[in-house]
């Protein structure tokens, strides 16, 4: 069941209706049933995998909780008889025990993801034929990460394990965010899922507006641009030079409209149910540095890797030992960098791998890492520049230049995702500077990419609307919330969205861009 299908619209509407028709205490059951109905129609062969993840998540979380409870009971019962050291030893023993349970659970959870997603890739490194083609269940990267994040939180004692299996199942499978996130935290999402929210017409309006805007971004903007991107990718041997720049620009539009649009649909539906999962974007294309970009783009994934990979790795015992050793042998300046940089490289390697099983994803992750490390190293120079030219650095044109530079850099390395072949992508990047075919592009080449003038006009209009909404969204109260307070205006805007999407949207026979890109990650 695709988000962009009429069947999904009917399904979502029915879920919202049933949710509010049920007594508050039973509403979470409606969500759970809806999750599994959605997943069943997405592919019933995927069901065993999500059930396995749920079972692992539930049982290992309960196991760790039992250890924590036993530890507390023991310490309570022996409060007067244990010395400080003995108490420390008991805590340490239980911590080690929990860690082993966590590692076992993670091996099972991540192991299934690794087998299904990466077996083919690993085998392909060693041989060129007989590569297994395993199924990749819908949203597996998202629900595995969300579930494993919960297990880590339980092991750290940040949250108590859920006692009800079905409630755990609901957390793992909440359907709006199953396809492409956001990757929520248990402490944030679970209470909202279980609580029976009262009907609130404001939530309904705000959610509808958000979902409609998401559909607009996906179907009118992203899928239209995707037609040209597909042509550029399919004919990449001949469409070099300026066409590569065109692809970088258009694919940036595609990925933005597709991913943020999909998240808007997911969060919009959740909002109609009174649920507010974590935000995943904060006007990422206005970022003035790569670091800022990654604080604004796919926020929940970034914070997941930071909290569950980067920080634990940075403060791990081997890293501390490495830090000590490198400071002693390589000096303070370089010595303190090495463990941080190693943790950064490993985190970005995993981030790339999370996106897909392919060298292009790994190289993409490592290039992001490289950009971040280089900007980190250039920080003193940048500070010097700021001191010398304070007025320039505070000016709008300078900020615009920074945002454009970041946008182009991120777009450039993102094109690895389109060409899906690292040496070829590098070669094509080279042609930007060696093949000057802008004349050909402007004299009609741009109209031979599957889009006509009318399509480009729609695209330009769509981008302009997204830009304006983004600018208006800077205010303290988001534009959508301000609008949703006015019911008549909301109905009018929804009607306008419906008309625009129906007429200018890219869908139906002849178009195959219906799926969301992040659905495949």
């Amino acid at each position, binding site marked *: 069941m695709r988000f962009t299908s009429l069947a999904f619209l009917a399904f979502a509407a029915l879920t919202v209706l049933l949710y509010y028709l049920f007594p508050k205490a039973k509403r979470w059951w409606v969500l759970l049933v809806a999750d599994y109905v959605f997943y069943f129609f997405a592919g019933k062969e995927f069901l065993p995998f999500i059930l396995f993840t749920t079972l692992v998540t539930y049982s290992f979380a309960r196991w760790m909780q039992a250890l924590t409870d036993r530890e507390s009971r023991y310490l309570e019962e022996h409060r007067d008889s244990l010395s400080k050291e003995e108490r420390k030893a008991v805590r340490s023993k239980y911590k080690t025990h929990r860690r082993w349970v966590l590692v076992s659970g993670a091996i099972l959870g991540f192991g299934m993801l690794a087998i299904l997603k990466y077996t083919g890739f690993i085998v392909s490194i060693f041989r060129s034929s007989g590569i297994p083609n395993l199924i990749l269940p819908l949203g597996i990267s998202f629900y595995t990460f969300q579930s494993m994040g919960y297990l880590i939180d339980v092991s750290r004692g940040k949250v108590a394990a859920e006692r009800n299996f079905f409630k755990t199942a609901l957390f793992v499978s909440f359907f709006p965010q199953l396809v492409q996130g956001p990757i929520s935290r248990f402490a944030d999402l679970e209470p909202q899922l279980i609580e029976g929210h009262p009907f609130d017409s404001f939530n309904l309006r705000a959610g509808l507006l958000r979902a409609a805007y998401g559909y607009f971004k996906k179907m009118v903007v992203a899928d239209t641009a995707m037609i040209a991107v597909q042509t550029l990718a399919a004919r990449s041997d001949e469409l070099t030079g300026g066409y590569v720049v065109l692809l970088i620009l258009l694919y940036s539009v595609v990925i933005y409209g597709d991913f943020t649009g999909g998240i808007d649909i997911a969060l919009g539906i959740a909002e109609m149910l009174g649920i507010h999962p974590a935000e995943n974007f904060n006007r990422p294309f206005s970022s003035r540095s790569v670091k800022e970009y990654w604080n604004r783009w796919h926020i929940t994934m970034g914070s997941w890797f930071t909290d569950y990979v980067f920080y634990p790795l940075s403060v791990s015992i081997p890293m501390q030992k490495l830090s000590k050793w490198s400071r002693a042998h390589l000096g303070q300046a370089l010595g303190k960098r090495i463990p941080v940089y190693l943790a950064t490289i490993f985190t970005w390697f995993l981030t790339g791998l999370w996106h897909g099983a392919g060298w292009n994803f790994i190289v993409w992750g490592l290039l992001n890492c490289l950009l971040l490390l280089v900007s980190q190293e250039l920080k003193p120079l940048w500070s010097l520049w700021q001191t010398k030219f304070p007025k320039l650095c505070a000016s709008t044109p300078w900020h615009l230049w920074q945002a454009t530079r970041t946008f182009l850099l991120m777009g450039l390395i993102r094109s690895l995702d389109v060409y899906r072949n690292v040496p070829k992508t590098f070669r094509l990047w080279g042609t930007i500077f060696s093949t000057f075919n802008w004349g050909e592009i402007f004299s009609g080449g741009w109209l031979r990419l599957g889009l006509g003038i009318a399509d480009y006009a729609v695209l330009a209009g769509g981008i302009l609307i997204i830009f304006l909404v983004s600018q208006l969204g800077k205010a303290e109260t988001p534009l959508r919330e301000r609008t949703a307070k006015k019911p008549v205006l909301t*109905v009018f805007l929804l*009607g306008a969205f419906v*008309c625009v999407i129906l007429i200018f949207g890219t869908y*139906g026979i002849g178009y195959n861009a219906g799926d969301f890109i992040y659905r495949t990650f």
Partner: protein
Amino acid sequence: MKQIQLKRWLAAAAILILLALLLCALNRLLLPKYRSGNTEGRLTADYYTDVKTRHQVLFLGDCEVYESFTPPTLWEEYGISSYIRGNAQQLVWQSYYLLEDTLRYETPEVVVFNVYALKYGTPQNEAYNRMTLDSMKFSPVKLSAIRASITEEESFASYLFPLLRFHSRWKELTQDDFTYLFDSSPVSHNGYLMKTGVEPMTSSRAGSPLTDYSLPVSSMEYLEKMRLLCLKNGIELILVKSPTNSWGYWWYDEWDAQINDYAAKNGLSYYNFIPEAEKIGLDFTTDTYDAGVHLNVSGAEKLTSYFGKILRENHGLEDLRFDSGLSAVWQEKVVRYQQEKEGLLK
């Protein structure tokens, strides 16, 4: 406070009504008009402009009916009032549902079904489906026709609301789309689509051999449904095969034998006009516009004259020219038919 709420509801309702009207208008605007070039897409819609006229005979089938029989000739020569509900590659279930649709308006005395489309047992082609179904008036019959006809890649919803299919036509709207936005005047002559060109049939090549000559079970089931529906409504069902038989559209003897058996078993009349071509007076060097695939107006008039006699003599269809009201209606149709023919032949 209550007044403000009421005002809000009214304003929202007004916006929703306007939205619905706008979508209906857009739906109408974006639907292909089939007025110039490919006019076959208008054939289903044309019928609804003539539902008030009494029709003794209803022709059903694919292009072999709407290019082979001319209702104005049938009226002029025999006083038989008829209508053709045929479309390009109209599949047998579409013929069945168009018969059901017709029965919502009238009950003809005779249904003439051209058997060529029986060779298709599964949905074939979106473009032909669209031309047959899009302009069918909404009814449970239409829903059944859509369900039976759509190919795997098509969506049911897009037939209920064709805007979902034709939305991207906003880029290719022409003057026709605005001129014929509300114009429902017919392009055909009671379902007959006039072609006056001549392209002689030069090949006498027979169709390629088949591995299986059985007519598909599904299409024979619909033929049976059609027979039963006619029986229930007191209509005589006549089976025909038009006289055209070019190698790409070959009518195999084995198929003919199956239809003969079916007709004999159920007491139906079956006229295969292929071996009758000479008797009819058809000359395939002058009576076809596309090398023998279809008849042109000259061929169609000859066949209609021949078949009219059969209808009169074998099936007892009354001459209705005494009915002044009906005569007046047909007079207009005949004049329009003659004018178009003369215009095209000039």
